[in-house]
Each structure stands twice: as structure tokens, then as C-alpha cells.
């Protein structure tokens, strides 16, 4: 087991520096010039050149990378070209909203999707299975913006129960925070509930076909015991993997939901940075997201090894 943990940790470590080099090169390879965008529509070439010099964008690429990487080693992600604020401050400002949204979605997906998938797996081919599978397919297929607009229309505009948009920090108001998250979580939750239900159904039904399950049933194990003690325990590994990758993905990829609900999260920050060619934000955020991704995958790998020691051997 110790070897397994060490191997996993050591194999994860080089990923982040490799990602940082690739991201830096990709961001700069397009030949984009943030100074031209920042200087505005009618700026003269001298003004753009002065700005480029001020931002050190006229330095050779290798030198720019060296400066960025050296700062990175000191924990300095640099400052935004457009907002003139340290990247880390911008991330800290926004990570709360994204984290709250991601946790809410994962919670909903696991709490509703896994039982739904397990129930359908236990009653394969039944009317219940067909109905729930159809609903899950619908939730999986509906475009997010359509779900969002429908929920806003019903719960915010018609009934007036919830806000249309915005995010309230829990530090300002716990009730406001919860109210501001309900619709976005429901919007994304519908998709992820369906995803988790489908994966759980497929995994559990596959496990239920195994010989050891048939043996347990023949020995008189109740359906509940078969599900909880055998099937879900084995299904935990793929479901944990799905949870981890979904969570890490949500942290970096909530662009549409954050836009539709005007939530100032990381997704919107990175999409705006890409449109403005705010290099330091793109580089910093991709790096931070990749650290998250690698860390989550590592933790999930280790947890899977714990749940299913065969894989760790």
C-alpha cells in the first residue's frame, strides 16, 4: 500500500510544472497582444508600444517565462493586466462562489443521483426503471440555459421566491447565500443528478450480475444487504472517481451557469480573461485549476485503493 501511495504521489508531482510550461506557451503562441486591447480602439502605436514596454510584453518569451516561473516559485502568481490586482486576490475573491456552487451541485448529484441509480439498477426493466431512466435522459439532454431560464421564470419571476441572479457571501447573510445558490445548483444539479444516476445504474447493475452476488442472494441475503454491503461498496470506486473529476471540473468550468446567474466565480473570471487576453490570469487560473485537478485525482486514486485494495497491489 505504501508503494502504491508513493508511486501515485511521485507520478502526480511533475504534472504541474509541465502544465505551467504548456499553458505559458499556449497563451503566448497565439501572438495576442493584451496591450493593444487595453489601449483601446483608437490608441496610437506609440501608446501601445509604451504600454507593451510597461507590461514587459516586449521582452523575449524565454525571459518572460523565466520571470513568471521565478515569481511562481515564491508563490507570486503575478497581477492582472486589466484589473491591476494580484491574481491570488482575484482568485480568493471568486473561489468562494465557485466552491459553494460546486459543493452544492456535487451534494445534490450524490444525494439524489446515486440512490436513483441504485433503485433503477435493482429494478431493471421495470416501469419504475424505465420512467426514472427516461427522466434522467431528459435531465442529461436539456441545455443548461433552457433549464436556467425556465427555473428563473417559475421560481423568481412568477412566484418571486428566489432571486434572479447574483451571489451573496455567507459572511453577509447565510439566508441570502442559500437563496442565491438554490437556482444555480438546481440548474446544474439536474444534469449531474442524471449523470450520477446513469453511472450508478450501469455500475450497480453490472455488479449485480456477478457470481458472488448471486451466491449471496442464494444464501438468503436481503436485497438491502446485497445493495449496501456488496454492490455499492464495489461501486464506490468508480463513483468516487466520478465525484472527484466532476468536482475538479466544476471548479474550472462553471462558465455558463455563472454567466446565466451573474455569479462572480472562477469560470467567469477565466472566460473574461481569455476574451481580454489577460495572460497572467489565464496562466494563474489554469495552473491553480490543474493543481486542484491533480490533487483531487490523487486523493481519489488513494481512496479507490482503500475501497478496492486489489487495484493498489
Amino acid at each position: 500500500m505504501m508503494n502504491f501511495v508513493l508511486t501515485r504521489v511521485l507520478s502526480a508531482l511533475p504534472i504541474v510544472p509541465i502544465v505551467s510550461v504548456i499553458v505559458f506557451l499556449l497563451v503566448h503562441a497565439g501572438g495576442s497582444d493584451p496591450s493593444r486591447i487595453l489601449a483601446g480602439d483608437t490608441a496610437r502605436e506609440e501608446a501601445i508600444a509604451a504600454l507593451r514596454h510597461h507590461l514587459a510584453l516586449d521582452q523575449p518569451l524565454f525571459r518572460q517565462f523565466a520571470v513568471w516561473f521565478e515569481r511562481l516559485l515564491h508563490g507570486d502568481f503575478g497581477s492582472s493586466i486589466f484589473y491591476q490586482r494580484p491574481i491570488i486576490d482575484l482568485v480568493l475573491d471568486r473561489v468562494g462562489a465557485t466552491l459553494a456552487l460546486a459543493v452544492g451541485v456535487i451534494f445534490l448529484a450524490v444525494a439524489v443521483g446515486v440512490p436513483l441509480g441504485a433503485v433503477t439498477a435493482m429494478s431493471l426493466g421495470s416501469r419504475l426503471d424505465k420512467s426514472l431512466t427516461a427522466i434522467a435522459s431528459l435531465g442529461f439532454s436539456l441545455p443548461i440555459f433552457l433549464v436556467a431560464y425556465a427555473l428563473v421564470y417559475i421560481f423568481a419571476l412568477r412566484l418571486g421566491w428566489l432571486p434572479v441572479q447574483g451571489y451573496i457571501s455567507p459572511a453577509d447573510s447565510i439566508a441570502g447565500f442559500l437563496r442565491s445558490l438554490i437556482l444555480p445548483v438546481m440548474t446544474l444539479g439536474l444534469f449531474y443528478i442524471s449523470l450520477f444516476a446513469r453511472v450508478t445504474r450501469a455500475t450497480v447493475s453490472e455488479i449485480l450480475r456477478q457470481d458472488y452476488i448471486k451466491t449471496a442472494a442464494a444464501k438468503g441475503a436481503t436485497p438491502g444487504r446485497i445493495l449496501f454491503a456488496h454492490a455499492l461498496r464495489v461501486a464506490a470506486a468508480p463513483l468516487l472517481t466520478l465525484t472527484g473529476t466532476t468536482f475538479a471540473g466544476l471548479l474550472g468550468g462553471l462558465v455558463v451557469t455563472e454567466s446565466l446567474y451573474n455569479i462572480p466565480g472562477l469560470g467567469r473570471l477565466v472566460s473574461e480573461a481569455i476574451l481580454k487576453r489577460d495572460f497572467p490570469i489565464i496562466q494563474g487560473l489554469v495552473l491553480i485549476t490543474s493543481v486542484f485537478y491533480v490533487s483531487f485525482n490523487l486523493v481519489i486514486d488513494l481512496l479507490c485503493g482503500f475501497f478496492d485494495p486489489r487495484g493498489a497491489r
Partner: protein
Amino acid sequence: MRNGSLRAFLTSAAVGFFCVVAAPVFAEQNVLRVVIESDPPTLDPTQSTSAVVTYFADLVYEPLFAYDSKGSVQPQLVQNYTVSEDHLKYTFTLRDGATFHDGKPVKSADVIASLERFFSKDSSGSELKKRIKALQASDDKSFTLTLSEPYGFVLDVLAKRTPTIPYIYPAWTIAAGTGVPISDHIGSGPYIYDPQASRPGSVLTLRRNPQYAGRAEPQDLLAGSRKGGSDVIELHSMPDSQTAANALTAGEVDFISDLDPDLVEQLQTTPGIVVGPFDPRSGTILLRFNSLTRPFNDARARRAVAMVTDQSQYFPLVTARPEDGKECKSIFTCDSPYTNFVGSDVIGNMNVDAAKKLVKESGYDGTPIVVLQPTDVPNLKAVALVAAQQLRSIGFNVEVAASDWATLIQRRALKVPQSEGGWNLFVTTATADQLDSPSNSLPANMNCETSWAGWPCDKVAEDIKSAFEKATSVDERKKLAADFQARILEVMPYVPAGQFVSLSAWSDKLQNIAKGPGAPFYGIVKKAD
């Protein structure tokens, strides 16, 4: 303690408690929430020509002069001024009590540093600078500007309302040089930027400046008092226009500055919402040529495009209601002082055969030409497609290069031929006051390399402009403006493709909304529920 005293004490305590508890409620009533078109690319108004930056800057900074609703220049940060009889020496005195947000008084040295920075950034500013012999402080509150030759637009330039606007900054905030963006947003305006309560990219929060001592005259568009109407103004940028409309309907925001035409009908029928123009003159659609490269380096090819520019196909693309668009074949915004129609019959005469003949005469050889299409600006995306189709109708082989606006701006800066990544035509819009006169018309600037992207070059037009700027009588200026238009429509650096009115939407609880070019938010009062 006697009963009366006890009652008085308890009453006072209850009132005090009520005030403390209710304070946030009152504060909430005084927050004006405005949705602006997009996230400001920067908060430094000298660093961008984006109009959304001006929304922020008008709250924080003040210029020396400002336009009123009649289009007249009025003193703003200047208390009074005199002009010598020979029109060469201007003496200015600053307004009493004008202080920056850091508590320091606005001094002549701040004004001179700010103007020098403006001169180096702005084309109108640089035109004025060419004629300045000296700009000197007489003392902390007064300064003189001495010209080398009479120039009739000194005050117009100092009151300029289209970016770049000559706001006055504390000298220390701009000391790092013209290329260095300002990071301390300290002005003398009616609102103080609160970076702690702001979230760049999402919301900018500005609080009323309690020390603000504005002008005594009532607000008249940008002139007069700038005393704030609300305690707090929040400028929100929302990426989804439907979300903004829903938020206005639900009362979560109070004002949408630039309404998506698709949402006009929805909001017009929503109780409690007013839909109307914030600037009733709004803007003009432009088709801009690259005058440096083939085929549009030849005026005949450019005139051919103008001939098939059917304006009635363009303005419906950027408006929701028929009454919000109109044909305007003057190079000056229709209904402005210099509007005339000299030479404008060439635009949209739809003589396709004559246009094809001109294209042939220009030597166009069928090489694909590149029309830039911004995909993230919905209205302009459609305008580019219509332009491409009209170009095809007279024999041009057109490639539409679709990209986001940021990429478009970068490609547009390239002066190389289209085969090497360059371009031939792009579409955009200009606000009405950017097309008011020969002096401030950005697309009609024919000063070669220093003119706007497209880089047209014409000494005749520039000479007429120069004469216009020296002219002292209104009649003389009108005549020269007509001459200027005739020349511009002959060389055709761009084609005006129709005028339109942009609509805004706001809660009917708002009062005192100034309307006009560059209309600001500071005077808007929000009625309590």
C-alpha cells in the same frame, strides 16, 4: 429618575435603537444598481476609449469644462476664465473648495500634469497642443494657456465628452508616465471608488463623496451640479442580457444602460419598467475600409461599395423598433449643427452597373477580400454579413473572417495585405458626438499613419479641417464643414450605413435621469418604495 425623564430616556433609546437597526434599510434604498454594457477593460480613462470606462470615470473625476444639454461648453472644475482680445491667452481659475478624494486640494500643477497626459493620448488634444506656446501655473488656483495662433476649439477640447476625456487627476497618480495605467483612482468627483466593496469584472462600487463641493448651478446634462443622487452607485456587468432584463423585472437592478434589441418588446410590456433612449442621438453604423491595401487603396473601389450601401438594410439590425433607425447620408450625425447632404447622393444610389464598372476600373483582380466579423457583438455580427453580401453583389470575392472582438482589434492593427493576415473592411458603430464636426470625426481623420485603423490619407481634407478649426464665424464653419463632407465622400474612407437610437431600460422609481450625449449616472435619484 422622574417618570417624565424615564419616558424621555426610553423614547430616545428606542429612537436610537430604531435608527441603528433601520440604517441598513435606508442605505439599501439609496443604492442605485446599473447594468453597463460590458466589463470596463480598465478603470483608467486615459487608457481606453471604451464608453463604459466613462460611466465609471464621470462619477470619480471631473474635467475643467463640460457640455450642457444645449451643447454649450460650461465651466466645471474651473470657476471662471478670461480670454484675451487677440484670442491667444486663456486665464483659468479653479473652483473654490475643489478637493481630491484624498482630501488634498485640486491645484494648478495637477491640472497641467493631467492636460499634458491628455495631449499625448488624444488626437483632439494633440491638435490643441500643436498650437500651445505655454501652459503655466500662475499660482495654486490659477493657470494660463497661451496659444501660438487663434484656435476656436480650446474650450471644446477641454470639455470633450467622448473618450479620451480630459479629466483632472492628482499629479502623483499619473507621475509614472503616460504609458503606465493609473492604479489609484482618486478624483475630485461626486463619488469615491470603493475597491474593497468592488469585484472587478463583476461589480464596481462607488460611494457618495461627503466632502464634494460642486457647482451651485443645477445639473444640466454634464454641466452644473454633480452632487450625487444616491448614497451608493453600483456598476454591474452581466454577461447575459436576458439575466439583466430578468433582474430589472424582479427589481434587483434599477437601470440597464444598453438594451439588447431582442429584449425591448419584453420590457416595454413589463409594469414598472420604462424603455427609452439614454442618449436620444445614439450612433451611426460605419463600414470602414483599409485604405492602405488593395483593392480599397483605390477610391473608386470604396465609392463602388458606398453606391450599394443600402442603409435601410443596416439599421434594422441594431434596433428593435422601426422608429429607432433612420437613413442619414451626411457624414455628420443627422440633426447636429453641421449636418449637410453635399455629395451624399452617392451613398446607396443602388446603381449596381455603375458600381461594378468602378470596381473594374479600380483594377480589382478577384483576389479574395477579408471582411472582419465580430462574433461576440451580436448586432455587428449581422451587419458584417449584410456588408459582405452587398460587396458580393458588385463582384467582390469576399471572405468573412469571424472572430471575437479582441482578436478582431488585433487583426485590424495589421497593415499587411490580406494574403499575409491583413484585412480589407470592418464594421463598427460610432456615437453621435463622435461624428459632430470635422474636428472630432474619428473616421474622417485623414492624417495617414496616425489616423484610425484603415489609415486614410488626404491632405485636401486635412487642410479643410485645419481651416475649419481656425474659422471664427458660424457661417464660415458651416461652409467649411460642407466642403469637408464633399471631400470625404469623394475619397470615401468609410461609408455611413445608417443612424440608430440605442435604448436603455430603467425602473419607474428613478427620477432626474439626464438624457443626452455622455449622460452620467450621478444625478439619478431613486425613490424609496
